[in-house]
Structures are given as C-alpha cells and as structure tokens.
C-alpha cells in the first residue's frame, strides 16, 4: 500500500497498464513531455517513449477519431480530453462512431479497447467551461460505458478495469478531488468491477446515491442527518452505465426512500433515469417520492457557483423533507 492522491493513483494505473501490455498508448493535449495540465500522465513519455505517450495536435475530434481507429486496429488507446467541457468537438466521433463500431459491423470490427479519460465537475471556480458534468449525454449512447471514481483506490481499480474492458469506456475524473482526495492504494495490479455500485455505509431510513466528488457531499449531509437521528445508507454508483440497479433497488427496498445527488443540471440528468427505474421496480416499497438534489437548469455559473452547487446543506434539507414526507 502507498498513500496517493487521485492524480497519483491515475498515473499509477496508467503505468501499470502500460507496463503490463505494450499495446497500451496514452495521448492527448499536453500529455507527453509535460505530463498533462494536471500531471496525470507525468513521466509516462520518459518511461515508455514518445511512440506510446505523446502530445496530439489540439483537436478533440481528431483525438477521438484517431483513438477509435487505433483501437479498431487492435491497440489499446487511452485518450485524454483535457477537460470534459471540451469533449464536444468529439461528440460526433463518440456518438456515431466509437459507440456504434461493433454493432454496425455485426461484430466484425470493434474499438472496445478504447478508454477516454477526462476531468469533469465543478467547485474549482472554473465557470461555464471548466466545471460541467456531462455524464448524462454519454449515458444516452448505447455502446458506451461511463465510469466515475470517488477516491484514489477506486480510481486505480476502476481505471484498470476500464482499460481492459472490451467496450469503449468514458472514464470521468472528478477534478476537484485530484489533489484533495488522498488514500491508501495498493501498488500492484488490481481491478474493481464495472457496473457495480459501492455501498459506502449502511443505514435504514433513507438511501443516498451519488458519484464522483458528490459522494463526499452526501456523506457530509448524512452526518448532519444522523445527528438528528436519521439513519442514512450511502451508495456510490461508480458506473453510470451500465448502472447497478440491483444494489440501488435492494437498498431502496430496505429504506423505502431514495435521494440522488448530482452536479449536472436537474432536467434530464442521470438521476431522472434512476428515478424512473426505481419507481418501476420498487413502487410498493417507496414511502416518499424519490428526491433529486442537482445543479440548477442554468449554465454553470462563476460568481454564483456556491449557490448553484447541490451542496451538503441542500442535501440535508432534502433528506429531512423526504423522511418527514
């Protein structure tokens, strides 16, 4: 075990994957010599050479198109998009190409070895274009998996699983935790299963569900609620797609209540999908309406960031409303 922050854990996972399989290649804007603007790819070029870790020209559509082709040839590309806010020039490649590659060729061709890494999320005074949480867009594309870790241990295990999974995976890294989240991480190779949620804490009155940096927020809210005698179960979804409906529903069957928290805007956010499925499967167990605590339906603001965020206080109030329904 070693103590690492999330960036170091990501870096460590990349080193592990590149050492394990020489077909693994890492590239994107500024990821080469410099090691990325967040330094997640530090020393990879020095260790593995320019052929396997390199800067690309500044074109996201190029990066993902290139990566998709490279994956279809049998290599294992890990493409970095510098900020999730800048993934949209590549949206066509991801939606129409990457995600449909296998299906449209009847399984003859696949780009399943592709992993796209990208930092996302707010809380860093980043305004409109360094704060967004676009996971729901990608959850709407059959053929893509979407994975989000909440701490260094999950980051390494889930990233290694994503790299080795035979489907294109969008791996979204909560950037406000990059240096803030520190924990024990095994130095050797390990994987955490995709498609599985993680029950962080058990409880009996309400299930709280989040992913990425918001897990910390529901934990904080849960502590406030516990002080008032409300017992909270905390679940980290980890995989946005496919998502672990079984773990979530068995928790809701037990507690009878569900609150979902995400940073992305409320309308058509991934909480909407979870809500629809859970009410379908757990209707008779529900003791109150499923509650969503999310970002506002506005662009992500700068000056009003604090007010915009679905923070622990909003979550705490929502827990009380839901329990006292």
């Amino acid at each position, binding site marked *: 075990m070693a103590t690492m922050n999330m960036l170091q854990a990501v870096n460590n996972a990349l080193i592990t994957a590149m050492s394990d399989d020489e077909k693994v290649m890492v590239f994107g*804007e500024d990821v080469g010599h410099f090691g990325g603007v967040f330094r997640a790819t530090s020393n990879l070029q020095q260790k593995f050479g320019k052929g396997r870790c390199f800067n690309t020209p500044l074109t996201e559509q190029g990066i993902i198109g290139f990566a998709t082709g490279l994956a279809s040839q049998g290599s294992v590309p890990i493409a970095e998009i510098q900020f999730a806010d800048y993934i949209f020039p590549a949206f066509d490649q991801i939606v129409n190409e990457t995600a449909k590659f296998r299906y449209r060729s009847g399984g003859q061709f696949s780009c399943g070895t592709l992993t796209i890494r990208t930092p996302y999320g707010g809380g860093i005074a980043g305004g409109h274009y360094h704060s967004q949480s676009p996971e729901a867009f990608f959850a709407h594309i059959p053929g893509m998996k979407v994975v989000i870790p909440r701490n260094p241990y999950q980051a390494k295990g889930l990233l290694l699983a994503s790299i080795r999974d035979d489907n294109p995976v969008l791996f979204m890294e909560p950037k406000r935790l990059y240096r803030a989240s520190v924990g024990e991480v095994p130095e050797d190779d390990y994987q955490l299963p995709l498609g599985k949620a993680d029950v962080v804490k058990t409880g009996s009155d309400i299930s709280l569900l989040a992913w990425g940096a918001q897990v910390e927020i529901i934990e904080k809210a849960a502590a406030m609620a516990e002080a008032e005698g409300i017992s909270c179960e905390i679940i980290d979804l980890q995989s946005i797609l496919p998502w672990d409906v079984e773990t979530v529903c068995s928790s809701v069957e037990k507690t009878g209540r569900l609150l979902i928290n995400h940073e992305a805007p409320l309308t058509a956010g991934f909480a909407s999908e979870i809500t629809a499925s859970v009410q379908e499967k757990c209707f008779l167990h529900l003791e109150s309406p499923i509650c969503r605590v999310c970002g506002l339906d*506005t662009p992500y603001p700068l000056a*009003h960031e604090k007010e915009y965020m679905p923070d622990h206080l909003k979550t705490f109030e929502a827990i009380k409303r839901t329990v006292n329904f």
Partner: protein
Amino acid sequence: MKDRNHLANIGLTHHVKVIENGLIDIPMLQVLQPDGTAHKQAELPDVNEQLASKILHTMQYVRLLDERMVAAQRQGRISFYLACTGEEASTVASAAALEPQDMIMSQYREQGALAYRGFSSKEFMDQMFSNQNELNKGRQMPIHYGSKALNFMTISSPLGTQIPQASGYAYGQKMAGLDAVTICYFGEGAASEGDFHAGLNMAAVLNCPAIFFCRNNGYAISTPSEEQFAGDGIASRGIGYGVRTIRVDGNDVLAVYAATQQAREIALKHQCPVLIEAMTYRLAAHSTSDDPTGYRSKDEEERWRLKDPVVRFKAWMQSKGWVDEKLNLTFIEETRQEVLKALKLAEQVPICPIEQIIEDVYDTPPWHLKAQLAELKTHIDMYPDAYPKTSGRG
C-alpha cells in the same frame, strides 16, 4: 485566384510528380528590425505621431495590467489570469488598423485589442472580480471579456469556436451592406481544431469579409508548434483554402499595422476573407495555472525577450523624436496608479444578486427556472452564513 472548378484547365504531367513540403515559400513581412530601425527597402505604413503614441500607450498599458493582475492572482485576489506579454504588437497594432464598427472575435489573449478599443480599467477589473457591474454579469472566469458597445464579442473558452462564427458574422455584415469587417483572433494551437478548417473554408466559399488573425506564438500550453503541425505554419493553410494570406512579424507594430490595414481593404473591396499569420512568442506563462519551466528553456525565452515588441516600437518612435521620456515615465506611473485604484474599487463591489442566476438562460425565464430560483432563495434565507455573497440582500 485560379479557376478552381475547371478540370480542363489543370496542367498535365506524365511523370509521377510528388508535391513536397516547402514548395511554397511564404515570406514574413517585417518593417522594423529588432533594434527599431526601419528596413531600408521597407514601405512604411502611414502612422503619424498621434497614432503611434496611442499604440505605444496601449501596449504599455496592457503590460502594466498584466503585471498587476498576475500579482493579484498570486495574492489570491482573483482566481485566474492570462497575460499577453510579448504579443502586444500583434493585437494592439491589428486593432489599430481597424475601424470601431468592425467586429472583434477573440480567443482570450487579446486584451491589447480590447484596450485599444477603449475598454476601461474599471471594466477590466469588474470582469476579473466578477462583480455586479461586470458586463457579462460575472458568469465567466476572469479574462472572458465582452463589450457590445465596443463591438467585442464575449469570449468563450472552447477553442476555435469563434472562427466559423466570425465567417457567419462577416457574411451578415456583407448582406447588410455595412462598411465593416470581422476580425477573428486565434492561436496556432486552436487552428488545429475542426472549427478552424470549417470556418476558413466557409468564409472562402461564401466570400465573407473576415480577417482571420492567427497569433502563432510557438506554444499551445506546453505543446510546441513543432508538435502542433508539420506544414508551413498556419499561412500555408490559407492558400489551400483559397484565402488571400499574409505572414507578418508579430513583434513588429508597423508590419502588423500595414498587413491588417491592407487585409481590411481587401476584405471590403473584394468581399472575401484574408488570413494573417503573425509570428510571435508567448513570453508569458500560458496562464497563472501554468509553469513554463516544465517545457521550455530560459535561454529560449531570453532570445525572444530581445525581440520585445514594445521596446522595438518605442525605439522607432524615439528615432522620430516622438517620445518624451519624462512624459512617458509619468504616463507609466499614472497608469500603474490608475490600474491599482480600479482594482481596489472593483474588489469591493458585490456579485450580482441571486435573481441573476436564472436570467439570460432564455430571453425570459421559464416556469421551471423560476421555481428553482424560489427554492434556492428559501434555502439561502435558511442558511445565510453559508452563502455570504448573496444572502441578506433583500
């Protein structure tokens, strides 16, 4: 321009002829030598003392502004800043060659053009402190300026997006019969985006009176231009798209001014785009989040410091007897004070009231945004201490 559609006009060859890189030699316009003396053969643009002083003062102003704001960021007073040190001539002299009715669409390192247009220290500071006086209502990170009154389109962080937008804006100017063009600034890194190619091609095909001004400053964050493109810079692409193209020394005020002035004339007269590639160097760090020592040498920076565009232009003005050293020092001192005063005032001003959070998403807020605001306000009232910037304001 060649007749592009006529297959019959294509010359024939009977041997495999591979066109290799570097066949087109695109020279760089330079009027002033690095020491500020004009090249003997160079044709000097018509720049009188008054215009020269305005250009010099604007360049000196943005340099002071940059120094002050980099320091303010280090002191934790603002969250982010991005300096244009070394590139002042490119943006100031190009803006000087335009008319106020021309639209400016910039990338983010063009505070020189904005200052030339007359953006005040107060306006700069209000933006960087995202206070309630800010023209964009404090919604974007520092340095994302915008001013309708000055025909300066609000900056957007996603790179290259303004390039096809500039083509469209210019097409609208043409259709409206305006005596105006659009200038679109971008970096050599942004020119790798698909939007660059789309925008240039559309401007060429649809004959848009736009000036595409590339600041080729050698770097896109840490990525040197050698890893950005393999062709002959950005200028060679203009030729490929059938766009009239000029390459210019971006550290030479007179060359940039001459090139932009001519580009504007051409764009208006022929109703067509012009591409300018300004060869310059980003002496500053990419932004306050960046440390260039990780990817380039001090030596390299020093070589470019010798080509300082402000020093070069000032030397030329001195040779004309247009610089009163004492007056210039007074100007610098007064400007420094003025900038600091504006900073101190702006940092005291509160941010927009919370009602603004749902304004401008649409022309008028729909029901769901009104409901979300009402809920938010109730919440803020419940926890006023947690939201000190917006609570208790009626």
